[in-house]
């Protein structure tokens, strides 16, 4: 005799399938609204001291990906007690630097904090089609999940500039 819960398996499977189709449809068709255009990276207080102690810290990834109209402002904040070269510029303690992008392109900045000496910023056009919206949301979801898991990908990490 099958357990009672087995009776509901087709129902649950159908429900999950409908949720998946509905969610994908929403992700593809619904317009994207964002609360802020800022893509924030911060140098936490004590970063310099930790580096001096031999700790290897990374903040900015080698490549940052932005999207026009959604997250098209690179916002860098220095919360440490000393100046830091952070991406394209030198930022004083307590200072922030907000760099807007208006054209989709790949931008390369000299950045001594990276082994290659370069920081790449790829600015994608705003997603227009259903496929592009779906892809953007999938990437955002991936970043968020990876961020929560503490894995070394973009967004609001501690590290070097």
């Amino acid at each position, binding site marked *: 005799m099958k357990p009672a819960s087995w009776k509901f398996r087709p129902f649950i499977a159908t429900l999950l399938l409908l949720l998946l189709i509905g969610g994908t449809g929403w992700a593809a068709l619904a317009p994207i609204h964002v609360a802020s255009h800022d893509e924030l990276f911060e140098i936490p207080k004590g970063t310099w001291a930790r580096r001096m102690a031999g700790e290897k810290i990374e903040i900015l990834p080698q490549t940052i990906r932005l999207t026009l109209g959604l997250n098209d402002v690179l916002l860098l904040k220095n919360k440490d007690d000393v100046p830091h070269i952070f991406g*394209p*510029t*030198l930022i004083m303690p307590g*200072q922030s630097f907000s760099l807007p992008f208006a054209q989709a392109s790949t931008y390369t*900045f000299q950045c001594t904090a990276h082994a290659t*000496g370069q920081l790449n910023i790829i600015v994608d056009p705003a997603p227009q089609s259903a496929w592009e919206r779906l892809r953007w949301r999938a990437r955002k979801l991936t970043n968020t999940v990876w961020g929560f898991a503490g894995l070394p990908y973009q967004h609001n990490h501690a590290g070097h500039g």
Partner: protein
Amino acid sequence: MARLNHIAALLLSLLFVVSMMASASATVGPALKAGVFNPPYMAPDFSLRGSDGSDVTLARYRGKVVLLTFGYTNCAAVCPTTLATLAQTRSGLGKAANAVQVVYVTIDPARDDVARMHHYLAAFDSSFVGATGTPDVLAAVRRKYGITAVKQGGGSNYAMAHTSSIFLIDRTGKLRALMPFGHDAADFVHDVKLLLVQ
């Protein structure tokens, strides 16, 4: 009592309007096309030999918007593009161009002497001022601005990989913004006009 309420309402309205105006004037940052420093601090000053025969300091240009950039006269692509853009910017500003000073600090003092910089910059705009000094002094200036300059190749035809951004310094000497390489003259005209009216 009703009269007092009216006066209180009027004062509150006035306070609201004044606070809105104050906040609007304090945060011009987002309106600029360039990257904005918040809060802005005084731009690190320096004293270098100018291509016009005098000492170049930022203090000398108080009252003007200074467009500060770093490069070298043998630069094949980046510097000519930047300087041509800045020359177009001055043209686009009309009479307001008199309130703008372009300062070009060399990262290659071994080849860029005063005479060479003067000749080179005159091809773009005769008002541009070049600045040079000893290698140590120039390195110290670069550190203050976070400028990278790396020699590439040997012999006399070496190149220099360098930071290509342009710093925007307001009339009071504060470092307000940084324009990355690649922006056209219209963006500079837009930002300089905003800085000139503050």
